[in-house]
């Protein structure tokens, strides 16, 4: 809590209905966000049980300076991932962080399994479990609409919810946050479903006055101006991350048709510019962000015979365009937005959904599976058939789709085709085939995401490749992001929040820190995450990378398997040293 030396945690047990609030002074050293959430996950998780066991916790945490400064907009969710079986960590923007802060909670721990579908309603002075039987089987949008009516409090309210995929235990089911944001990766939605938890509504009414307003306001203004008066964030607002489509395709780093290529011949038709000219109708921002990077595209949908059309607004981003576009050979903006809408409604991680479809398409083409399993013929570029297949996937229509719902790596173990099941550490690949940085970065990243250490960024630095420099760069960035994610900064703004800015910001709100303490916090958090992974049985050196990564030339040339595994080994050695140097009491 701001101005307090403790972390205020709300514990909710869905099985017993017990609700408890604890003020945890011992968590103060973890700053907030991912630091606090990691420690709570380590305390509460059961390494001896499967990820969807009722005893497993879901932990949410907002940051140490959530929404007090610009662009500190995110909430972290931590859990045991049903997709990888190890560390689950996912971030979402929207209003959730603000509402947690205003409701007076730094963190929320949800455990147990409800006896019937429920939603959790959190208000500043009240926490209740409410009947959600009516909501079960409803799509994400409809669930949000109904809860908005039941829980009035617009503006300071956040509603997070699952769709059909989460209810049916798809291992990469997502949780939708305030319509256009998501806890997308690693299957939080399936954990919600396993607990019969359909949604959480949070309404915050608390106000915390700033004590030293002069210092605070100066720091705030400095950060705000960097975000709005310089070019640092301009691209994010103008075209957003879809600006990446064209440069990645030209350089050979755009995963295309299940990464059988790194260049898409129709990249110009699905570029950021094309989306903006053809579909863009609005730009939105998470609460507390002056940038506004959420791009909303509009499509027409025929919902009935007799020329009955409606306009549908869908959020789009680079990762979605890659996974449901180039990766599946889809070559128009409208078709991609249609697929995004399907994934939204069903409540799945768009990246994993696209990548599993890429594997399924190639498995179908190669005869590893037949139409009696896929139910529709899968072929690159066929949007309507992918839409149908995604619905089978969320519904778990047959054994094939239920296997596919466990992720590409597990499906390939059953049906074959592991060489082209494009996963890294069990997580479906991100949209960067840029070189050793992106590949090794995701392999060693705590949650196997491009966001763990920004490896793709190292690839495009134009510096000559040197293995030790790569490993050092990834390790340094992974640690630093543990600290950034304890605040929790939107990583788009990581260049705005350099160390002096962070120190000035925290000092101005009564949390004195110096450079050394920030480094210690970063290491403390990273160690905690590494311990969690160890306890859950993860072995970094056992990670196997699909052969396709080495067959398809990347943006920085053909990758050598031996070099990639050597980089992983060197990185693992660094984590071993970090853990061995741990002298703190746990």
């Amino acid at each position: 809590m701001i101005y307090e030396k403790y972390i205020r945690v709300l514990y909710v047990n869905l099985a017993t209905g017990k609700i408890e609030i604890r003020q945890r002074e011992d968590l103060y050293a973890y700053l907030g966000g991912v630091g606090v959430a990691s420690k709570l996950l380590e305390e509460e998780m059961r390494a001896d049980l499967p990820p969807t066991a009722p005893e497993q916790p879901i932990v949410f945490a907002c940051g140490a300076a959530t929404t007090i400064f610009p662009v500190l907009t995110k909430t972290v969710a931590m859990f045991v991932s049903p997709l990888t079986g190890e560390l689950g960590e996912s971030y979402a923007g929207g209003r959730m962080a603000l509402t947690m802060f205003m409701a007076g909670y730094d963190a929320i721990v949800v455990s147990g399994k409800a006896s019937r579908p429920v939603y959790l309603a959190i208000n500043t002075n009240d926490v209740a479990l409410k009947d959600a039987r009516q909501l079960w089987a409803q799509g994400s949008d409809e669930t949000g609409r109904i809860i908005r009516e039941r829980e009035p409090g617009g503006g300071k309210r956040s509603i997070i919810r699952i769709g059909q995929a989460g209810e049916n235990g798809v291992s990469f089911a997502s949780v939708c946050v305030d319509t256009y944001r998501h806890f997308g990766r690693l299957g939080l939605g399936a954990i919600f479903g396993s607990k019969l938890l359909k949604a959480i509504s949070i309404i915050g009414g608390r106000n915390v006055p700033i004590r030293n307003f002069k210092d605070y306001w100066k720091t705030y203004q400095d950060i705000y101006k960097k975000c709005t008066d310089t070019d640092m964030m301009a691209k994010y607002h103008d075209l957003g991350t879809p600006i990446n489509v064209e440069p990645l395709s030209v350089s050979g780093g755009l995963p295309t048709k299940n990464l059988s290529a790194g260049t898409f011949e129709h990249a110009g038709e699905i570029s950021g510019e094309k989306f903006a000219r053809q579909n863009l109708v609005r730009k939105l921002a998470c609460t507390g962000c002056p940038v506004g990077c959420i791009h909303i595209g509009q499509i027409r949908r025929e919902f009935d015979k007799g020329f009955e059309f409606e306009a549908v607004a869908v959020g789009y981003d680079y990762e979605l365009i890659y996974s449901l576009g180039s990766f599946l050979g889809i070559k128009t903006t409208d078709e991609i937005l249609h697929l995004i809408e399907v994934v939204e409604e069903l409540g799945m991680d768009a990246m994993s959904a696209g990548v599993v479809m890429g594997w399924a398409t190639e498995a179908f083409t190669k005869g590893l599976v037949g139409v009696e399993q896929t139910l529709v013929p899968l072929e690159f570029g066929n949007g309507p058939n992918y839409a149908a297949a995604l619905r089978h996937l969320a519904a778990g229509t047959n054994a094939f789709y239920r296997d596919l719902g466990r992720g590409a790596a597990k499906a390939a173990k059953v049906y074959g085709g592991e060489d082209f099941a494009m996963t890294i550490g069990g997580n479906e690949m991100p949209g960067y085939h840029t070189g050793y940085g992106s590949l090794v970065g995701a392999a060693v990243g705590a949650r196997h995401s491009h966001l763990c250490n920004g490896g793709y960024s190292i690839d495009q630095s134009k510096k000559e490749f040197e293995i030790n420099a790569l490993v050092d760069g990834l390790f340094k960035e992974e640690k630093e992001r543990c600290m950034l994610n304890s605040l929790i900064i939107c990583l788009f703004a990581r260049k705005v929040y350099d160390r002096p800015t962070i120190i000035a910001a925290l000092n101005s709100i009564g949390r004195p820190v110096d450079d050394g303490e920030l480094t210690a916090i970063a290491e403390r958090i990273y160690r905690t995450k590494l311990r969690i992974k160890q306890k859950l049985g993860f072995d970094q050196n056992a990670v196997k990378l699909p052969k396709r990564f080495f067959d398809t030339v990347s943006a920085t040339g053909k990758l050598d398997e031996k070099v990639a595994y050597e980089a992983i080994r060197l990185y693992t050695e660094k984590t071993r040293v970090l853990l061995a140097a741990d002298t703190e009491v746990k």
Partner: protein
Amino acid sequence: MTIRLLASDWLASRFRLTGDRELELPEGASAADAAQAAGLPEAEIGIHVVNGAKAAPETLLKEGDTIKFLPWIIGG
């Protein structure tokens, strides 16, 4: 020599380029020289594209080449 500049939409709008146009450059000019002549700061350019293919900034241009500049990849 004359080369053809194809400005990417974003860089063109951000740096007020007038869109696709001809550029007159001295013999021996490179892709980086073309960016300077077009008024684009080198630091803003992630990829130089000469005749449709990724090229190094020091790539020498010749009469009739087309050149395009693309921004850096962004993200979290």
